[in-house]
């Protein structure tokens, strides 16, 4: 097991290296002097010269990369001239809404989609099954921001049940925080529910044809036990895999959803950074999201053994 974890850890090094090279090259591929791009439009020539020496821009590109990656590994992501803060501070401020949104969405989406996926598989061909499949195609097709605005219109403007936009920190007022999380998490959940319910249905369907399911039924176990303990547990590996891959959708969706609901999170920060051409921030956000995505998928890979004892490493 430890051996497997070590091998997987080594395997993600080249992946992250490619990401790092891409993120590093981003700034070099933009037209113009990288130092001037970083410093922004209002920079003085002294500031530009200062950045030039800090980043080693007069050195060959290999040295520049070494300086940059050395800084990144020490947690020094540079300075955002637009926001007048270090990028690390900026990100620390913006993490909470995104993390809260992601956790609420994951909890909600998984607790809805897995049961409906199992039921759809159990009653294959029924009205429920067709409804679930129909919903999942629809969920893939309606863009998140349209769903978000529809929800705002119905629940916040017409019915007045929930606030339209904005964010309250979890430590400030938990109830208000929760109120403001409902619509964004619902919005972001739709695509995720579509994805997971579909894959749950497919993988449970496959398992339901196995001999051990028939045996379990034959020895008189209730449907609930057969479905939950025998079928779902054996179907868990593909479901987990898709949840892991779905994190990419979650991150992309967060960018859009945070903009719709005015949440001051990392997704909104990404858009603000692109609009103000704040490269140190864009680079760091992309690096951060990619590392999170890769690490979550690594953890999911490792967790397979918990669900399926046949998988041995």
């Amino acid at each position, binding site marked *: 097991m430890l051996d497997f974890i070590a091998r997987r850890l080594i395997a993600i090094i080249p*992946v992250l290296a490619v990401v790092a090279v891409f993120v590093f090259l981003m700034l070099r591929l933009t037209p113009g002097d990288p130092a001037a791009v970083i410093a922004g439009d209002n920079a003085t020539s002294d500031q530009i010269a200062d950045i030039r020496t800090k980043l080693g821009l007069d050195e060959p590109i290999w040295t520049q990369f070494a300086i940059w990656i050395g800084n990144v590994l020490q947690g020094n992501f540079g300075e955002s001239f637009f926001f007048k803060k270090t990028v690390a501070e900026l990100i620390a401020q913006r993490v909470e809404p995104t993390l809260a949104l992601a956790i609420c969405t994951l909890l909600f989406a998984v607790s809805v989609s897995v049961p409906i996926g199992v039921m759809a598989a159990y009653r294959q061909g029924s009205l429920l099954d067709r409804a679930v499949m129909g919903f999942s195609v629809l969920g893939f*097709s309606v863009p998140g921001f349209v769903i978000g605005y529809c929800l705002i219109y119905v629940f916040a403007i017409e019915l007045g049940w929930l606030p339209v936009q904005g964010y309250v920190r979890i430590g400030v007022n938990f109830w208000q925080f929760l109120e403001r999380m409902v619509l964004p998490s619902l919005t972001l959940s739709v695509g995720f529910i579509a994805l997971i319910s579909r894959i749950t249905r497919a993988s449970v369907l496959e398992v339901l044809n196995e001999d051990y399911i028939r045996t379990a039924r034959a020895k008189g176990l209730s449907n609930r036990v057969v479905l939950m303990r025998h079928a779902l547990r054996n179907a868990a590996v593909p479901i987990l895999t898709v949840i892991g891959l779905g994190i990419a959708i979650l991150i992309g969706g967060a960018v859009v959803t945070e903009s719709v609901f005015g949440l001051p999170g990392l997704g909104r920060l990404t858009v603000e950074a692109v609009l103000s051409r704040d490269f140190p921030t864009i680079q760091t956000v992309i690096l951060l999201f990619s590392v999170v995505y890769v690490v979550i998928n690594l953890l999911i890979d490792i967790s397979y053994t918990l669900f399926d004892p046949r998988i041995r490493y």
Partner: protein
Amino acid sequence: MSAITEEAVDSASIAAASTKRKSLWLVAIRNPNVIIGGVILLTMLLIAILAPFLGTVDPQRIDPAARNKKPGTEITYRLDDGTTMKRVAIMGTDSLGRDVYSRVLYGARVSLAVGVAVSVISVAIGMVIGLVSGYIRWADGIIMRIMDGLMAIPGILLAIALVSIWRAGLITVVFAIVVPDVPRVVRLVRSIVLTVREEPYVEGAISVGTPTWILMFRHILPNTVAPLIVQGTFLAAAAILTEAALSFLGIGIPPEIPSWGNIMAEGRTLFRVFPHNILYPGIFLALTVLAINIMGDGLRDTLDPKMSKKV
């Protein structure tokens, strides 16, 4: 004697196989999902092509007197020759007085063009890289590591990063969406190449000295066509959504070009009072993507039954 009969059997099965391939396409276009999706898509295509003849006005025409009108309002247009023209804005107008109906209809052009362009370009690039990666062993390691790295960056973020490098524009947006899609196509093509290259007929072709490029294009490539068509439709659907999202965030296609994402972006500020600016383009967008996805499901079920079992 036996050799001759074997050959006869062989040619018969080859003939059968080739008719089978033809009939597969016939089955595909008779699939109800393909028909439903295709009809909706064709309607959208006609709307896009015929936009100037469907009672639209110039979608970029700004009219300060007709700002923020609700759907169904009658608007008096002052034409360039001094005469006036009355016209009902069935989808209302936006905050610059531009006609939303005209913008939505012209917007179909941008969305469909982006969808088709992204899927064709990413399939073409991905196919070539996938063939090389699956067939040339020494290149495989390097190519696949780069592809894995690109796939580690969530698609829309990679597109955002590329847009920020290249600055917004129709072509840059298309390429920004193509780059994250290419690794997915490469993986698909490579996996097919890896299985096909072990087939006896490929070994046979190698043993009679077929040049590598003929081998690739005549014997290996045709196996990838059906799965790639299926993959291509899903890529088109996702590309239309991504373009809309980028434009909606204000980092996609320049705002003066009427695309569905841009119309919605413009409608954001006054959404509470005038939801029509988001509603109508949203409906068109969702309907188009839904049609492509339904068609893709149908194509997958008929053309690529192996893949349909997986999902």
